[in-house]
């Protein structure tokens, strides 16, 4: 079929960019492999233990998060109340909430001196062993973030159930269990394998949470072990072995995940009839929702409370704080802008390509960065600039922007690709028959329709970069640090008030960007048309 408008320039530009991105992957891998063959001496790395521990926590995180996600999505789909949109938005923000901030919030609730132990001490005269450290702490933090993320994705599936199906179910008088089994579960089931693979991957490559809550070598994961090997033990051979293992496992998970139905980034919401479950079931739904909302919101609220009430003014007086803020914002904005440029070129090229093989080839190098975790990519760049003889301090800002941008690229492509494809699927014939130029097609049709998606993509990329610790951890210096690195250093030197203030500000910046950017860009995109 010749229904797609012919856009050779788009395809050529995307092909050129794909080759550059692929070359960068090859260069990074080459740098890692070259270092592996050149490194001398034995390594003290216990690979089997690290692999076991990483897989165990990722597997448990996946199972628990999917369980939480299904329960919360089910409850949220049923209940209607004032502020529901706010709760849904809160769960949607989980994907961009910096892991460090959540980990810090959990410590202030579940830690040795957290609320719960303080309450137990004053009420009963004894305190508990803190569950915030070790495997339990890692799992709690991951489930808080990934459970909320799963809930938001699964809720979109439930909200998209056709009205007609619900009407039939309601007229048949289905009970709560039958309704779940016959209507809800089939709607969610298809997304679970793909979603599970994403959560497994997120947990497998999790860095700041394990770094903060791991509590020692026994609970270390591959990602943290790489950082420790490079930064603390100067064990380059060990780091390279770990990095290659990490890439191999992530690649296998991605290959397996690609066989599953993709997780949709956006679904249309159907008008749902007013079909309430019986009162006892609704009580369970309320319980699930209240527990989940408290579980997610309490650590964050506590971060805000401790940060804003404690050391805020002391931190605001520090010149290093303002430097770190400026660095974070500049790096975040630069990497978001770069991500947008890369993702737009690739997505426009892919949508203009009719052949499946061509589309796959234009996507593979970008999506390959899912298999390269932040610390590993950072290590690759670190070795690469060293091999090129560039001082790492001089290369740091550029490398951090590029690395953060590449890490956001798969998410950006997943955000921009489907709406672009949808425009051409529904209007491709019309656009082609009208003989619109590529520029007309973009400015009049694609850009206004993509406004919100572009904003969402920019917000995701900006927030990912703002909260990043994995990339900056290897390149950061005293003069070149971002807010997460400054917060980590404050924690390391027991300045917890400073850390709390930085965490609070980081959270505020993140939420503001995540909420504000999509709306702002949508307004700009549509402004001339209103």
């Amino acid at each position: 079929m010749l229904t797609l408008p012919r856009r050779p320039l788009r395809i050529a530009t995307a092909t050129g960019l794909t080759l550059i991105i692929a070359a960068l992957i090859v260069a990074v891998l080459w740098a890692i492999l070259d270092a592996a063959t050149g490194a001398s001496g034995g390594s003290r790395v216990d690979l089997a233990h690290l692999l076991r521990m990483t897989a165990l926590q990722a597997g448990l995180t996946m199972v628990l998060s999917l369980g939480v996600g299904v329960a919360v999505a089910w409850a949220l789909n049923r209940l209607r109340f004032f502020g529901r949109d706010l709760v849904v938005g809160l769960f949607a923000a989980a994907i961009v909430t910096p892991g460090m901030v959540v980990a810090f919030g959990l410590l202030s609730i579940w830690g040795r001196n957290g609320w719960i132990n303080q309450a137990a001490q004053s009420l009963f005269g004894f305190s508990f062993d803190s569950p915030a450290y070790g495997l339990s702490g890692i799992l709690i933090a991951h489930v808080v973030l990934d459970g909320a993320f799963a809930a938001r994705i699964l809720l979109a599936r439930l909200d998209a159930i056709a009205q007609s199906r619900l009407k039939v179910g309601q007229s048949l008088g289905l009970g709560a269990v039958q309704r779940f089994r016959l209507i809800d579960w089939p709607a969610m089931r298809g997304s679970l394998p793909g979603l599970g693979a994403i959560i497994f991957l997120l947990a497998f490559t999790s860095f700041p949470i394990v770094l903060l809550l791991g509590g020692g070598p026994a609970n270390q994961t591959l990602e943290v072990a790489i950082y420790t090997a490079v930064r603390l033990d100067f064990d380059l051979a060990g780091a390279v072995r770990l990095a290659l293992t990490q890439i191999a496992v992530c690649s296998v998970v991605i290959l397996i995940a690609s066989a599953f139905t993709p997780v949709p980034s956006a679904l249309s919401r159907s008008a749902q009839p007013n079909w309430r479950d019986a009162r006892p079931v609704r009580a369970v739904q309320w319980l699930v929702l209240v527990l989940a909302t408290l579980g997610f919101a309490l650590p964050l609220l506590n971060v805000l409370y401790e940060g804003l009430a404690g050391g805020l003014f002391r931190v605001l007086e520090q010149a290093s704080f303002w430097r770190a803020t400026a660095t974070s914002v500049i790096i975040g904005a630069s990497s978001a802008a770069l991500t947008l440029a890369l993702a737009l070129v690739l997505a426009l090229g892919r949508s203009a390509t009719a052949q499946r093989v061509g589309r796959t080839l234009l996507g593979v190098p970008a999506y390959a960065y899912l298999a390269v975790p932040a610390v590993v990519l950072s290590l690759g760049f670190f070795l690469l600039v060293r091999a090129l003889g560039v001082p790492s301090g001089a290369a740091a800002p550029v490398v951090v922007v590029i690395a953060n941008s590449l890490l956001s690229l798969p998410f950006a492509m997943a955000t921009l690709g489907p709406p672009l494809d949808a425009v051409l699927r529904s209007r491709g014939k019309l656009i082609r028959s009208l003989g619109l130029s590529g520029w007309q097609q973009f400015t009049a049709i694609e850009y206004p329709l993509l406004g919100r998606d572009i904003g969402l993509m920019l917000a995701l990329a900006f927030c990912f970069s703002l909260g990043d610790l994995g990339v900056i951890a290897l390149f950061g210096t005293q003069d070149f640090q971002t807010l997460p690195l400054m917060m980590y250093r404050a924690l390391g030197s027991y300045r917890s008030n400073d850390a709390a203030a930085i965490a609070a500000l980081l959270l505020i910046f993140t939420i503001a960007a995540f909420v504000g950017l999509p709306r702002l860009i949508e307004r700009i995109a549509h402004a001339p048309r209103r």
Partner: protein
Amino acid sequence: MLRADDLVFAYPGQGEPYRFTLEAMPGTVTAISGASGSGKSTLLDLLAGFIRPTSGSLSLDGVGLLSLPPETRPVSLLLQADNLFEHLSAAENAALGLPRGTPKADGKARVATALAEVGLSGFEDRIASNLSGGQKQRVALARTLLRDRPVLLLDEPFSALDDETRKTTRELVGDLTRRHGWHTVLVSHHADDIAALAEAHYRIVDGRLERA
């Protein structure tokens, strides 16, 4: 005259190919009917250039069209739905039919004239998503006027309209076809549309066009 001479096409895995031969005169409506899946939309795709026949010829006033891609064929298209871009205004949608490089003021005046010709004066700034089904089809017709192509292909254009709107839109299509000398090819399975509008009528039977 628009003339298709033994256009042969088969989808992968399809047994017997379609073979279409057809003539459409200027200023007239030529109707195509047939059962669902008989190949009506395939015929329009062949005429518009979205698919290429394996053999045969297609010409307008003796000039071959098969080598032309869809964007440069002398053809306008009106589908059952999705003819407009919902986020653009009526005027912006219609203006997509203007030749590239049309000066802004001239373009604005021509869009206003075209919208007036289809009975939509004053609707210039209305966003397409806020127009009724009939109004949307009229805006698409205004765009067709601005494109000024001699062949108009209609794929069930009245199916989504209520009876009254259907009648007036049908009359408008017939009127524009006669006044502008278009070669209009209408695909429809509604006998009343065909009876009211078409000067010639073909039926697709077993993958071939037969004069009805």
